[in-house]
């Protein structure tokens, strides 16, 4: 899993962190072109004890949202956003298509966990329509535009392959007046 980590209110460039879980709490991490082993232990009502290359850090992690984290160590608080690359690509592709009926496809193999709308439903841009699980991660696939669902072949429990159509959404008729919600 590759994450792009950016620091809020900072001009620093985003940093790429590649993560592979070896076992519970043990990770192989690639950062700044280096591959390191990270042992992140946490039990009960405590904060993380992180050991990396022998260095030990006590780290407090506060989840502010599914990808927003406040991380405190050594008296420094970092407001970080962690976006996984897959999500970023998906988001980018859904942004690209911007007029006419939008067909949303699966970007990688996975399983449909949940279908949150039905054909004929009006949906808003950014509203979740289908939830797909891939690589142990749950991703909510959102409508790229305000509109009405016209096709919805995805079914809960179904396995999807790369490129399978998840749903199609037609722009709302009144979109021309420029006053979206």
């Amino acid at each position: 899993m590759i994450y792009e980590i950016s620091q809020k209110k900072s001009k620093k460039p985003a940093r790429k962190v590649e993560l592979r879980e070896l076992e519970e709490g043990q990770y192989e991490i690639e950062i700044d072109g280096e591959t390191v082993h990270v042992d992140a232990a946490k039990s009960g009502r405590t904060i993380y004890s992180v050991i990396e290359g022998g260095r030990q850090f006590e780290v407090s992690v506060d989840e502010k949202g599914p990808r927003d984290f406040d991380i405190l160590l050594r008296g420094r608080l970092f407001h970080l956003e962690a976006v996984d690359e897959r999500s970023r690509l998906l988001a980018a592709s859904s942004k690209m298509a911007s007029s006419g009926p939008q067909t949303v496809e699966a970007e990688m193999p996975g399983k449909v966990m949940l279908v949150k709308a039905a054909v004929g439903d009006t949906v808003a841009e950014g509203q979740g329509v289908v939830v797909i699980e891939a690589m142990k991660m749950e991703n909510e696939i959102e409508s790229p535009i305000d509109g009405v669902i016209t096709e919805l072949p995805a079914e809960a429990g179904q396995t999807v392959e790369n490129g399978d159509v998840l749903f199609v959404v037609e722009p709302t008729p009144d979109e021309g007046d420029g006053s979206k919600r």
Partner: protein
Amino acid sequence: MFKKILIANRGEIAVRVIRACHEMGIEAVAIYSDVDREALHVRFADEAYHVGAPPASESYLVAERIIEVAKACGAEAIHPGYGFLSERAVFVEACKEAGIVFIGPEAEVMMKMGDKVRARQTMQAAGVPIVPGTTEALTDEQAIAFSKEIGLPVMVKASAGGGGKGMRLVKEESALQSSIERARSEAMASFGDDTIYVEKFVEEPRHIEIQILADQHGNVIHLAERECSIQRRHQKVIEEAPANRMTPELREAMGQAAVAAAKAVHYHGAGTCEFLVDKNMDFYFLEMNTRVQVEHAITEEITGVDIVKAMIRVAAGEPLGIEQNEVQISGHAIEARIYAEDPEKGFVPSPGELVVYRPPGGIGVRVDSGVYLGAKVTVFYDPMVAKLVATGRDRPEAIDRMRRALREFAVKGIKTSIPFHEAVMKHPKFIEGHYDTGFIEEHMGGAFDPGEDEEAERVANIMAAIAAYRSAKARAAGAASSTQGGGASEGQWRNAGRRGQMRGGLR
């Protein structure tokens, strides 16, 4: 000696007084508002009574109810702590009428010292130096004329003021009128009294105060000084004892002035004379606090005298039992007030539940706190979570120890001022020991920047990835178990319940 004492307070100072009671074999009675049922001061008490709703005005400030509780449970005395009713002469009178000992000075003495203008007059009469300025209430015109007479800069102050409220530094003549007006309106809003006076502004001022103890038999001693110059918006943040650049001669002179002040008003109990010390080491009386101070602990650390126990003893009519020449200073102590506040956002309060609370320990570390793991910090009261006191053989060791203790202090669930204190303890000007009340403004910025730390940043980045991964995995596991668990309709229902969590999963 008393058998039972009611503590008309909450938080760390209530806990502090309960500890003193228990060490003396006295039963401690706590009072609590709705939100404090599970507070530490209740948990430590022998008896506990509910006194009202969360706002202090409906609980901890309701004098009649508190006295009623004390009478009903048979408490012979009331310790007021600091804040709340501790400096309200009417409460002292009410206790007396109810036949309950108020642990502190007489109402009359409190009134004399509580009003800043009267206190200055009293002190001047006792030969204690005061900051050049008026000692009487002034009209706007008088205040402006007098300011011009003693020369700017001046401080415009509210007679009834305290805690920085109703106080204005005026550097230019053009700002005089508006500053006076603002000081008056603040004072009216906060204290219901818009009387003001004007004082010469002291340059490179340091806030140094003398702790005194007095019994009802005329014995008065002082326990040396504390330096409280690290202030933010006129609120003390870090204190130390002894003061920097103190000489035995100056300590002797200031101590004698404080003792004289206490004797002048026939004071008994613990009290503090606050002084300003200027760049020439000249000192001026500011005001007297007729109660235990937040920062009393650092004096206890360097003298070995338990101030709260002494207060109880003298209130019971016992003699002090310690002479001035028995007061020995050894070592150096620093107190850091740990607030539930966000140093990044201009120190706004940060209430919440303490999901992690691991105070530091070991050699030379004392923590006075009213919280514990799982406790909730509410918006109703002072946001101070803990007083962290580090004591060493000398000042450098005390600083090293404070730095170590701050590092150990783990809190999660609320934001705290711990990172701020860490930054102060590393600041060259603080380490040097040469600072005045302008320290925070000059050196720590409005907010503050703890500086770069490449290694910490790298680990934070790694942890962000791990946290995001764990979070997504936990959500996936939750979803997986729900699709496994039951039929479609139930799955739907359950997922609906979890929707909040998933919101924004992928945009």
